[in-house]
């Protein structure tokens, strides 16, 4: 223990504290600092996000804790994704669906250095820009799928790759989907080339009540999962209600085996999480002995603190209503219900709670809880002003989300509710971006946002249309006319059909 630091060289102390081997040593060093001014500087040292710095002139008693959210690293597997190089690109004479509800006929989109520069009726081509005439074509933001198991249940679907459900206990909030992602899943390339998908959320499956953390990925192949991770995206927590957890665990003779069992385990778990949060909040503020780390409770604490977004697989209207009340009971928010086959029955409730629904166009009838599916589900949500979006939950469906939203639009029209193209496209753009907490950087064609762009070879609401070119952060990563711009994952190299147009 050094006794020499009475005139604090704050920066030096900060570095020493960061390198301190144990919590005890950290606390000891911190006790040496006199006054809150030093504590304010300490708040900037750690790698973690969030946390308001202490006021230098506060008269409160000296805070001895590591600081809010500084008790442990909140981002220990950080994204190493870097945009690939692109060239200044101008699309002209093209129908634009900007993803936020805007449409421009025969308009122009300019992007450069990875960012959208301008979207308008007519843009002068900067010198050296690649100009693409989009006559007869559409441009949209890259499609965003909030529900995928690519990487966690990759192709081939063999047992050795079956990593999406840690189905050994109903509460596994400690597992993180990203630790199962296999970056060589051929499914990513299909989603890109056939579906125009540029961003996707990989979730644990729905065997468990608390499935674990989800991860948002850029649909860009990398050698490592971290190389695909969407930079700065918040984490999600996958939860599930309904038939799956009670069937999986009831079948093993353990709880839950009923819907009431589902909720009981949920509530007990949230109560533990509240307790954990209280202890860590107090420690981070006031110091003392750090509580034990519990990886599952870390995740739930993140939800209670508003850092981690809840994505709750839930089909039935009545079950969603119960979950909404449970969220109120424990002070958290349900971000999005997934599948939400009966969302249409409670569109008003979802709207009032500000909770979104991510749904299919026409999946139905495979379980009792999907028996009442209607094709107008998403349209009714739209009509009622509730938040709704499309999703796939399927390595094949992710290749056709544009066609799936076309189905909803057509069903709505037949039911007497006309939804313009530009409004419907939100379901695959800004709305899922918001649900993932990344709408400030992607999800629409707006100046300053990431140039995640799809040029379609026709109207994307038609079955006859496919992506022609796909850019991620302004880099051209798929071109249907250029066989070299068609990715082939390691697994597919040298296999029958390797390099084929799939």
């Amino acid at each position, binding site marked *: 223990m050094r006794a020499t630091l009475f005139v604090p060289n704050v920066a030096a102390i900060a570095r020493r504290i960061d390198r301190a081997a144990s919590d005890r040593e950290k606390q000891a060093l911190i006790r040496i600092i006199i006054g809150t001014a030093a504590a304010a500087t300490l708040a900037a040292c750690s790698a973690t996000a969030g946390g308001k710095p202490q006021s230098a002139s506060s008269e409160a008693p000296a805070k001895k804790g590591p600081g809010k959210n500084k008790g442990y690293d909140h981002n220990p597997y950080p994204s190493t994704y870097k945009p690939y190089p692109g060239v200044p690109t101008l699309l002209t004479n093209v129908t634009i669906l900007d993803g936020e509800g805007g449409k421009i006929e025969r308009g122009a989109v300019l992007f450069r250095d990875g960012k959208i520069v301008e979207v308008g009726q007519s843009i002068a081509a900067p010198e050296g820009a690649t100009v693409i005439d989009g006559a007869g074509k559409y441009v949209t933001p890259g499609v965003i799928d909030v529900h995928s198991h690519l990487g966690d249940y990759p*192709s*081939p*679907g*063999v047992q050795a790759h079956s990593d999406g459900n840690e189905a050994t206990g109903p509460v596994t909030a400690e597992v993180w989907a990203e630790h199962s992602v296999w970056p060589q899943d*051929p*499914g990513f390339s*299909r989603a890109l080339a*056939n579906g125009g998908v540029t961003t996707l959320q990989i979730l644990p499956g729905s065997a468990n009540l608390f499935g674990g953390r989800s991860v948002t990925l850029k649909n860009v192949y990398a050698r490592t999962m971290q190389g695909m991770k969407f930079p700065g995206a918040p984490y999600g927590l996958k939860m599930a209600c309904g*038939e799956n957890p009670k069937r999986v665990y009831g079948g093993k003779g353990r709880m839950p085996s009923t819907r009431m069992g589902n909720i009981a385990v949920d509530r007990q778990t949230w109560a533990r999480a509240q307790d954990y949060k209280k202890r860590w909040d107090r420690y981070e503020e006031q110091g003392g002995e750090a509580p034990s780390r519990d990886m599952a409770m870390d995740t739930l604490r993140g939800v209670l603190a508003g850092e981690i977004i809840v994505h709750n697989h839930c089909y039935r209207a009545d079950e969603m209503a119960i979950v909404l009340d449970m969220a109120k009971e424990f002070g958290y928010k349900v971000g999005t219900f997934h599948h939400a086959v009966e969302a*249409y*029955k*409670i569109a*008003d409730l979802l709207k009032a709670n500000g909770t979104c629904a991510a749904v299919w166009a*026409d*999946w*139905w*009838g*495979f*379980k*009792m809880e999907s*028996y009442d*599916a*209607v*094709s*107008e589900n998403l349209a*009714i949500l739209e*009509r*009622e002003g509730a938040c709704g979006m499309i999703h796939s939950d399927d*390595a*094949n469906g992710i*290749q*056709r989300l544009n*066609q799936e939203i*076309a*189905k909803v*639009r*057509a*069903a709505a*029209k*037949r*039911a007497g509710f006309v939804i313009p193209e530009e409004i419907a496209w939100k379901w695959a753009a800004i709305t899922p971006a918001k649900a993932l907490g990344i709408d400030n950087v992607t999800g629409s064609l707006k100046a300053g946002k990431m140039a995640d762009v799809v040029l379609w*070879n*026709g109207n994307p*609401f*038609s*079955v*006859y*249309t*496919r992506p022609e070119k796909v850019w991620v952060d302004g880099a051209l990563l798929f071109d*249907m*006319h250029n*066989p070299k711009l068609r990715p082939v994952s390691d*697994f*597919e190299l040298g*296999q*029958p*059909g390797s390099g*084929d*147009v*799939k």
Partner: protein
Amino acid sequence: MKKLLMAAAAMSAAFPAAAQTVAVTNARLVIGDGSAPVEGGTVVVRDGRVVAAGAGVAVPAGVPVVDAGGHWVTPGLFAGFTRMGIVEVDGVSETDDSAAANSPFNAALDVSPAVNPKTSAITLNRAEGITRAVVAPEARGSIFAGQGAIIDLGTDMDPVSKPRAFQFMVYGEEGGRRAGGSRPAAIAMLKNILFEVRDYARAPASFADRGKDALLTRADAQALVPVVTGQVPLLVHVERASDILVVLDLKREVPALKLVLVGANEGWTVARQIAAAKVPVIASALADLPESFEQLAATQSNIGRMQAAGVLVGIGMINDNEARQARLVKQYAGNLVALTKVPGASGLDWGQAFATISSKPAEAMGLGGDYGSLRPGRRGDVVVWDGDPLEIGTAAVRVFIDGVEQPIETRQDQLRKRYFDPKEGALPKAYER
């Protein structure tokens, strides 16, 4: 469109059973034989069978006329591989009659008594223009699954068009599993069964039936006799190229065998051999992932390439929500047309694509003379659409089976009507209907 619906309401107050006589005129007419649509078309159905269809066909006196108002008119769609009518909710085993894990029988299992015309999947898919379907059992205790049927999706209580219409067998990874753990085990099982079937056929009365301890009960042997004599087709689920060649080779051992390949995701890599063997294929349409080691070469261009090599290919939905989502074949066929604009891909033109969900799967089953097109003599299954039937969002507005107009309201329609305005009224939602 509204005019059509009003006409439909007027005409279809009752839905008499049996065959009917009707003419549909003023149609953008599709025959279903691979040709492109023709304008100003007419279809005449008499006593449940197509008499004539084409541009300028005259309507005989006294035949009730349905004016299609220029809309698309096609044959009812023929779903090439389903489990419709024998499953209500997949996850509820009591409602799932497709497989019997603990039955002593396998090839003998006959789906036709289990077909329930009131299944919600039948109502929903009829409303989407599917009028006939291949209904297959699932294999459990043997590589042989049992005897499938051809059904119509009509509302009457007589759904089976052709009982015991084919035998279904699995090979590949699934066949290996059913036979005890390997493909050689499946082949050994098959060869043994063929031997016993021939034994039975030679002297049925003296067949040594060992009951449930046998690979083959008397009933199973009896069911397989028409297969080895070529009277009913043998549909075989097979995906991998090398497995396809093994299955094709079965014809050397049993020359009368009427083989049909189902799935065939790697079929394009051995298309020449399939065409040379004159074996039809009921293919999965848009499988493009190496979901198993049996389909590493899967590509959406599979059907287009097989067709180009001279293979007779229709679309079927094996292991693809086959109990409920036959309607998706329209989207699949439309996607095959989209491939024609993708460099390096092999797609189908509109007429060919439509044929994969109408005449081709019927022909693959040896039933092209009865179903799947509006050629003379075929069953009078006719659908009037509100747009291009392969385009997303097109709806069937009138559906005829054997010339009888069908109701197309589903419980989904009723749910939608109840909840389109979710506000509470003067009574609970339960009273709204």
